[in-house]
């Protein structure tokens, strides 16, 4: 049923317009409390400290309800944390949103039924106010990047779930953001499509050099995609471990079969089960990628 085109090598002709500082995202002592309808509060996130360097691919993994989606939305200034500071590209998160420094991909594609694929990708560019020629250029470029150039004038209902998500990714990248936030984007897809899209995301990441924060509850996915995996505890969510993923790039199917991959998957799994207690808390506060 899928009508996806076979992959062709595409090189990105543009690079992020902003010169991103070395630290892309800086979270310090972030805490999030929600008021309960019956009264009282619940703590969703507690004492979150995380520094993400430019160009990294960081996954956030944790059990359901641990607050990872909330955390992502805090980075995107869609929710204000109760306390703590959030800096994106050296500015406050709010300013980063107003400057449109990031693109976001949600679990559902959230495409507009009434717009063609091209028009959907164009949406943020219209809001940004770019002129028509620039808009069309970027749309074409982004659709080439996600390998959907032949579907410019299709409507979302004509595409499969995986294709719709690729359109959503193209849309998120059309602003050429320095930061890409992804909230379990492939959760609703079947395993095979998911693995294929994982490879696509990595390819796009390599070509564009965007920093990526990727929320997931799939351990294999987190390890395969990331340079680091931040493991969260159940509610109240804290970052209990950060696993360095030192698998070589570029990663492909054979990576998934390597011994090191399985070791790392096991490490993450053990962390999730709370069995890997790190000796010192310093490990939680990382200063960026090792290399």
């Amino acid at each position: 049923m899928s009508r996806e085109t076979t992959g062709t090598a595409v090189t990105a002709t543009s690079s992020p317009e902003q010169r991103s500082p070395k630290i892309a995202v800086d979270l310090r002592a972030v805490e999030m409390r929600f008021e309960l309808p019956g009264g009282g509060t619940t703590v969703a996130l507690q004492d979150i400290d995380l520094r993400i360097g430019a160009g990294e691919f960081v996954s956030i993994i944790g059990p359901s309800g641990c607050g990872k989606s909330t955390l992502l939305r805090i980075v995107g200034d869609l929710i204000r944390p109760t306390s703590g500071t959030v800096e994106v590209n050296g500015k406050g998160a709010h300013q980063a949103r107003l400057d449109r420094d990031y693109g976001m991909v949600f679990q559902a594609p959230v495409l507009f039924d009434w717009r063609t694929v091209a028009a959907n990708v164009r949406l943020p560019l219209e809001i940004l106010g770019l002129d028509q020629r620039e808009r069309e250029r970027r749309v074409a470029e982004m659709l080439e990047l996600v390998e959907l150039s032949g579907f410019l004038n299709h409507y979302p209902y004509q595409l499969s779930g995986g294709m719709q998500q690729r359109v959503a990714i193209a849309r998120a990248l059309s602003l050429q953001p320095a930061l890409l936030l992804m909230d379990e984007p492939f959760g609703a897809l079947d395993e095979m499509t998911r693995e294929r899209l994982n490879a696509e995301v990595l390819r796009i990441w390599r070509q564009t050099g965007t920093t990526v924060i990727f929320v997931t509850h799939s351990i294999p996915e987190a390890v395969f995609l990331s340079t680091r995996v931040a493991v969260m505890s159940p509610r109240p969510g804290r970052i209990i471990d950060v696993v360095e993923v030192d698998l070589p790039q570029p990663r492909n199917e054979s990576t998934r079969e390597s011994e090191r991959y399985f070791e790392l998957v096991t490490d993450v799994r053990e962390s999730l089960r709370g069995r890997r207690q790190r000796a010192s808390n310093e490990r939680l506060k990382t200063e960026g990628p090792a290399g």
Partner: protein
Amino acid sequence: MSAAVPTVPHSGTLGAGLVVRAWARRYLPPAVVALAGVVLWELLTAGPGRRVIPAPSAIVVAAIQDYGLLGRSAQATFTEAFGGLVIGTVGGVAVAFASARWVTARNVLLPVAIGSSAIPIIAVAPILNNWFGVLNPVSKMMMAALLVFFPVLINVTRGLVEVSPSALELMRSYASNEVHVLRKVRVPNMLPFFFTALKVATTLSFIGALVGEYFGGTSEVLGRVVLQSMSSGSFPLAWAGILLGAMGAIVGYVAVSFIERLAIPWHAAIRLDEA
């Protein structure tokens, strides 16, 4: 979002048979019923003598005999219905935008509009005839407009307000303002609702015009033609008038459906998917 629909490649000779069969399956039974119905009607009512429910042939004859009167009356009534449709729709859309913008207005207007659907609004037809002049087509237009106003208001407001929260969150991530959201999300979202209301409204506009005429009007409008020929016993003409009015409503409905297909092609396809 719906999954992909594998489009069937254009049928060759083998496929053509399938298409014809599907077409026949869909259209033949109702066509047979229509034909049988008309024939049965004719058989039961044909023959001399004045009948309250005349034979179809008698109706056609009466229509041809009085085609001038019927034609002028139809034109007058169709104008009233159309005028009322336009006024009611414009009013409904305007107030809907206002109630989408201001929550307090919405909390007042929407329950009123929904509650009005329980009331026989048509009962104010004689009042409107008195207000605007019983011989003035505007009085019938006002009746039609009043009937049209409420469904349009309810549906357009719903369409503007009932937008998925994810879409709104997406727009916020682009730091867009209310105008962006209105133009790019709410208005397109509202269009299917609008056309649904418009289809109902075409029928209502004819009801408003005809019933307004029943309570009084010039003698060359369909409603008066129907009543007058009824009281003078020329039932074929009365039926001709009524059928003409019904046809006007159907034509209006079809026209709106057609415009809907052009304006929101994506929506019809989705509905077909879900059928």
